[in-house]
């Protein structure tokens, strides 16, 4: 089939590229001790936090930006970025939230008002615009069960013991360049604590949106599931269209204690930039989960459709015996997007098992790289891993690359790896069209089929959203 036809079919317009005109409170660009103190002060943080930030900043100054990813981009000028932007009105309750912000969330399809429930299912939402959490819903109802769901800033003020205990415990502040930067300047994010034996009764969600010009977004998420608890958490992201690239460097830490389970789903739709990659978000994210206790389980599901550059490897450290780590990923690169993503499964405990299902879709000039590490420690008797990495190419200007790494100190470890690269074949497209299904629907049907194993891991409402997003990204309006 003609290449232009395909290109036309796959160049979806970015539908979330609107900008909201809200008054912003923003520090001048650049980083220094003063800027860090300013951020910490703005957030009314205790001194110990300010000191931790400064420590991270000084470590960062000594570190170098990593360049081992299969990514090409202009150098980032860290002094031209503004590290703090907040909507000027500091909201206390929903009534005080700037109606324009509410409108923005409406456009994103996110129910900020508690009575608006997604498909009849309760979803508690923490919404973060630029650097500040603007609204957390259902907080009180959750509190009754002892569940803490609040912005990380609130948590630092209200739950210092939990923060001191867990923050930096999974991703140390000097873990990598971007994690160190985040540790110094993180502006907001979400904190979740599920007490012993509690099953969180609703989906928890955070929506991140970069709105202000020339700002970076550095959110930090910390989720602790105490013994025997369960939580399903979802994050979504978007940003307006810009001419300049914006930096996003988040850190997510998960801790699952004995018999606890955390399900973490991401639908990432940061602005991808134009056909040359201009204006998109640079997304450098460190996500790591620690299966601390026996029989604990952490499951990462991600649908990555946005960003100009994605550098992201959600990982699991399987420390507890019999603990389970899972990674389900769909990464789409179209236009000139580049994604270098994958996972690390570190098996330390006995009989630990991990599953990796990665689906990469490349269209137009998109470049998709899977990078996965499975490491089996000396004491990880009976460890098992299954990895499957499939790439789907649409057109012939895009690329897919797979780099699986395996380190095994245990001869008994059982590791299976499968990888495939396929093209949407003319035969498949023709078959569907011969049955009266138009080309656009046929492409989307084949792509959804390819992603099925991952979508089936998402909570129902989000699976619907992910499919719609995928259609938008890959097809848009033909013509």
């Amino acid at each position: 089939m003609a290449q232009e036809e395909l290109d036309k079919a796959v160049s979806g317009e970015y539908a979330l590229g609107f900008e909201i005109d809200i008054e912003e409170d923003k520090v001048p660009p650049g980083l220094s001790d003063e800027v860090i103190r300013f951020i910490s002060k703005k957030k009314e943080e205790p001194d110990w936090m300010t000191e931790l930030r400064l420590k991270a900043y000084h470590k960062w100054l000594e570190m170098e930006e990593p360049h081992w990813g299969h990514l090409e981009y202009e150098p980032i000028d860290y002094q031209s970025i503004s590290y703090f932007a907040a909507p000027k009105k500091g909201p206390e309750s929903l009534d005080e939230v700037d109606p324009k912000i509410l409108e923005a969330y409406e456009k994103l399809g996110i129910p900020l008002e508690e009575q608006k429930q997604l498909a009849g299912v309760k979803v508690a939402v923490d919404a973060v615009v630029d650097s500040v959490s603007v609204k957390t819903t259902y907080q009180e109802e959750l509190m009754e069960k002892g569940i803490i769901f609040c912005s990380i800033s609130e948590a630092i003020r209200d739950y210092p013991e939990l923060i001191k205990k867990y923050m930096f415990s999974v991703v140390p502040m000097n873990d990598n360049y971007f994690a160190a930067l985040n540790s110094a300047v993180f502006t907001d994010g979400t904190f979740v604590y599920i007490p012993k034996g509690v099953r969180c009764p609703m989906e928890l969600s955070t929506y991140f949106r970069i709105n202000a010009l020339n700002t970076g977004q550095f959110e930090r998420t910390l989720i602790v599931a105490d013994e025997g608890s369960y939580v399903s958490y979802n994050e979504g992201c978007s940003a307006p269209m810009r001419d300049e690239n914006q930096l996003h460097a988040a850190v997510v830490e998960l801790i699952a204690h004995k018999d606890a389970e955390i399900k973490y789903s991401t639908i990432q739709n940061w602005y991808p930039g134009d056909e040359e990659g201009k204006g998109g978000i640079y997304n450098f994210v460190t996500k790591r989960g620690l299966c601390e206790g026996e029989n604990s389980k952490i499951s990462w599901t991600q649908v990555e459709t946005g960003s100009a550059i994605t550098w992201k490897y959600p990982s699991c450290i399987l420390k507890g015996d019999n603990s389970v780590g899972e990674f389900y990923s769909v990464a789409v690169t179209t236009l000139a997007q580049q994604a270098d993503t994958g996972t690390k499964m570190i098996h330390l405990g006995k009989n630990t098992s991990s599953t990796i299902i990665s689906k990469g879709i490349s269209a137009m000039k998109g470049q998709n790289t899977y990078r996965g590490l499975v490491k089996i420690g000396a004491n990880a008797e009976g460890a098992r891993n299954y990895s499957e990495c499939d790439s789907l190419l649409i057109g012939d200007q895009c690329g897919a690359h797979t780099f699986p790494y395996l380190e095994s100190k245990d001869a008994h470890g059982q590791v299976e790896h499968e990888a495939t690269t396929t093209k949407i074949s003319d035969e498949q497209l023709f078959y569907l069209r011969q049955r009266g299904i138009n080309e656009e629907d046929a492409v989307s049907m084949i792509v959804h089929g390819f992603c099925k194993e991952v979508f089936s891991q998402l909570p129902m409402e989000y699976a619907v959203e992910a499919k719609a997003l995928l259609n938008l990204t890959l097809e848009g309006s033909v013509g």
Partner: protein
Amino acid sequence: MSNVVMEIENLHARIGAKEILKGLNLQLEEGKVHAIMGPNGAGKSTLSKAITGHYDVEVTEGAIRYKGQEIVDWEPEDRALEGIFLSFQNPVEIPGVNNAYFLRTAVNAKRKHQGLEELNAAEFLREMKALVQELGMKPEMINRSLNEGFSGGEKKRNEILQMMMLQPDLIILDEIDSGLDIDALRAVSEGINKMKDGKRSFLVITHYSRILDYIEPDYIHVLKDGKIIKTAGPELVAELEEKGYGAIEEA
């Protein structure tokens, strides 16, 4: 003589640089069953692809008129929506696409095209299940991925299932009988016979007389080296079986 549903005139078509159809003429009549026989590589599947608008086949000369309209420039889906159905010689596998979901999308695309209301999932499933049973297919086929891991015979039955759900006007069956066991051949033939209504036309490509015994064609055409070299009544089958295609050439 009945109305002509499709008229193919001096059709030249190539795949890549190679000319496969070399001035083919064929008329298909409304309500009739036409069988095409011919040696391997003669261009039978290529003809079915030319009629349905496959990307591989480039029509360089001639005309294909369907219900009076020239369709050579039509998109494949438009030909399908207007009632042309092809049962593929080798149905392709589409991983992860649920068989029922796919077929419901197809059925509803057609209903929409006809200005009818879409079938909801329950109505659709009721119909599909009944046909699955009638064709002797395993009920689990409904929710498997489209053709994925289907045996040869299962794929063919699935094609017939689609045909029966879509209710097309012109049905092309490319070697529907190859790879079918005896029971499957009977079930499939019965399915086809049930579709005969005096209006609907069939173009049955086959190498064997067995299926023709079941579905009783009105005409036999011999396709050889990119052309129809002979058209006759059903009595031609016996002659072909006896003498082979070589004898026909001289005829």
